[in-house]
């Protein structure tokens, strides 16, 4: 029984390998694509906000005002793109994306400071760009605080700070966002290539009529599915290894945990995603519908619900439930655990279990829904 299953599944796998070989362009694409995507994404997606375009509206023109401008531009977070005299001109610059922040220093700023009173300035921010605005917001309050402290200390003289916070950052001491984001990117790329590989295979056979011929043979449903899965699993493993090796070497992602656990969790994840593609193929039976479903169900959910960029803990609870049904969520979590924190089975076992469960459930559903009829 088992032997027959293996022999027949291997026969289907052999047929699928011949399909893959006959289309070398797609195969080449499948191997090059993850590398190109990782290269672009790894550099493109970054939270390290720098060079926020700043307009300076200095109506005061005193040394104190210039010191404040210097404090803003010192760290490279802001870069001055324009000088204006009238704050009303700022909005035009915001609307055409020429600037995202404006520092308005009103007349009398330097005088108030010299008199020993509060000197007010204003930072206008383009709230249409949330990420930049919220970083700039934090930066503005830090600059105010630091500037005030400097003014006060200039009077009382330099003293040792009374409260020191010694921060110890685990796993990512320089706080590069790439170390946080690259494991997530690997997951998003693998979701895409795995589902893309299998979403069309069975639908294509229905469309081209070869499914009818397959059903005329004694091959069973499970055998077809396993046979279709096998070649893409090995192809996927090559892609997984490429993405992991490249991600780790190019973006300085540390490998603090065991490579074996990394490999194990990647294998199970790959199986689950390939199975998702096969399920789409079995259910839709049309390549057009399959490609729509595959595109809709993978890219955006993997990007937004996996915890790759947006922490799952921040989502409202109904969405946390939806996110729990995303294999990518478990993969992202365990990749970070193994790579960054060096955790082993004691931390990632729930993720491994969830991914295995996904694979098995999808396998059963796909086999059940796979009808031996062509109409």
């Amino acid at each position, binding site marked *: 029984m088992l032997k027959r299953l293996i022999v027949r599944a291997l026969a289907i796998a052999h047929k699928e390998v011949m399909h893959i070989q006959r289309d070398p362009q797609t195969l080449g694409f499948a191997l090059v694509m993850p590398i190109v995507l990782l290269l672009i994404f790894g550099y493109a997606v970054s939270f390290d906000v720098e060079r926020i375009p700043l307009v300076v509206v200095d109506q005061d023109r005193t040394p104190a005002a210039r010191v404040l401008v210097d404090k803003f531009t010192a760290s490279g977070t802001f870069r001055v793109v324009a000088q204006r005299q009238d704050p009303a001109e700022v909005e035009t610059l915001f609307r055409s994306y020429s600037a995202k922040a404006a520092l308005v220093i009103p007349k009398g700023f330097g005088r108030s400071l010299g008199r020993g009173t509060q000197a007010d300035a204003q930072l206008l921010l383009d709230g249409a760009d949330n990420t930049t605005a919220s970083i700039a917001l934090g930066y503005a309050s830090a600059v105010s605080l630091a500037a005030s402290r400097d003014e006060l200390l200039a009077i009382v003289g330099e003293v040792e700070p009374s409260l*020191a916070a010694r921060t110890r950052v685990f796993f990512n001491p320089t706080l590069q966002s790439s170390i946080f984001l690259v494991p997530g990117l690997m997951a998003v790329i693998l979701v895409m290539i795995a589902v893309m590989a299998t979403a069309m295979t069975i639908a294509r056979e229905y469309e081209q009529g070869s499914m009818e011929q397959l059903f005329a043979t004694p091959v069973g449903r499970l055998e077809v599915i396993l046979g279709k899965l096998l070649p893409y699993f090995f192809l996927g493993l090559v892609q997984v290894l490429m993405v992991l090796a490249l991600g780790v070497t190019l973006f300085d992602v540390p490998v603090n945990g065991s490579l074996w656990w990394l490999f194990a969790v990647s294998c199970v994840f790959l199986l689950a995603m390939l199975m998702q593609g096969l399920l789409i193929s079995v259910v839709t039976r049309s390549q057009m519908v399959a490609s729509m479903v595959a595109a809709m169900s993978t890219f955006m959910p993997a990007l937004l619900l996996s915890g790759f960029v947006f922490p799952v803990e921040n989502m409202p609870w109904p969405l946390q439930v939806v996110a729990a049904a995303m294999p990518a969520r478990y993969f992202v979590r365990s990749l970070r655990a193994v790579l960054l924190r060096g955790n082993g089975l004691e931390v990632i076992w729930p993720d491994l279990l969830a991914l295995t469960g996904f694979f098995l459930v999808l396998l059963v559903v796909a086999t059940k829904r796979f009808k031996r009829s062509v109409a």
Partner: protein
Amino acid sequence: MLTALRAVIVKELRQTLRDKRMVALLTIAPVLQLLLLGFAVNLDVERVPTVIADEDRTPESRRLADGLTAGDAFTRTGTVADGKAATRLVSRGEVPIAVVIPKGFGRRQRLGKPVAIQVLVDGGDSNRAIVAQNAIAAFAMSQAAAEAETQILQIAATRGQAPAIPRVNVEPRVLYNPTLNSKIYFVPGVAATLLLIVTLITSSGGLTREKEMGTLEQVLVSPIRPETLIIGKTLPYGLIGLVDMGLVIGMGAWVFGVPIRGSLWLLFFAGCLYMLTTLGVGLLASTIAKTQQQAFIAAMFFIMPAVLLSGFVTPVENMPAWLRPLSGFTPVRHFVEILRAVLLKDASASELSAQLVALAGLGIATYSTSAYLLRRRLT
């Protein structure tokens, strides 16, 4: 020409919409996705779960712990006995921040000596870690400033002078989205991405489906000209895309409170230009690919970088200098910028001329390339 065009359009619409699942995928799915994903996007780092390890257990240490967790930045989720337990929690990824108040903290503070606390941060989530670090630094800084102020007040009191307390206050004012609601920021991006997926996947499958089934030969022997075929193969999907755009913007306004401050006509015009580029790319994929699988892979290979390079998730300014010019080639970037500017800032067409010209240019370039390729195939 017009009769032929109408015939191709009717055929294409019929063939696509015959499958009821396709109708649902083209209309209900984008709206559902927007609803779902709109709630997911939230980068606000607030109430970071924080564990306090109070080794000192004095009124002073308790006051510090309360002061730290009083604001919006940190939420105290637990208390452990010592730094060792806190380290274990952070290194297992169970809690992102732990604050260790060492033994002797209260005594030193009573003696007026400088005191130090230790903050353990899980750098795995760098965004959250940076925000948390800044919040702690600001807390320490404001404490220092407060102490300098007390000193100045004391000195002034002993000398019998009026105290001079110079302070710099940079008051931030956020325009267009004063509460920095993430949804208002992300919904235009999600909308543009959904439109890209819907129009690109459908149009890239159009020609290749005919190639695979062998019906393209039949179309080619008919008197239909390549231009007619190209327009007829893309226009229906453009119409579907425009309907989706209306649905998605309506949902964004209704459910997520995205304001509509600018001109809807300008949005409609920009939407047409955007569709021109997405359909142009779809057509190009469709012309080059031999099978539907190839066309699908090519389409996805365009969609992923186009979205991530657009500044939808992280701003374009964050990208390295060599990559930033590349983001000019993604229509998503220009369309998202137009969407945000028109919806939130009431921007005019002349203020957005750069984006509009870029979209038109991309559309014309991709269309003429695929028209050229298709014509070469025909002759």
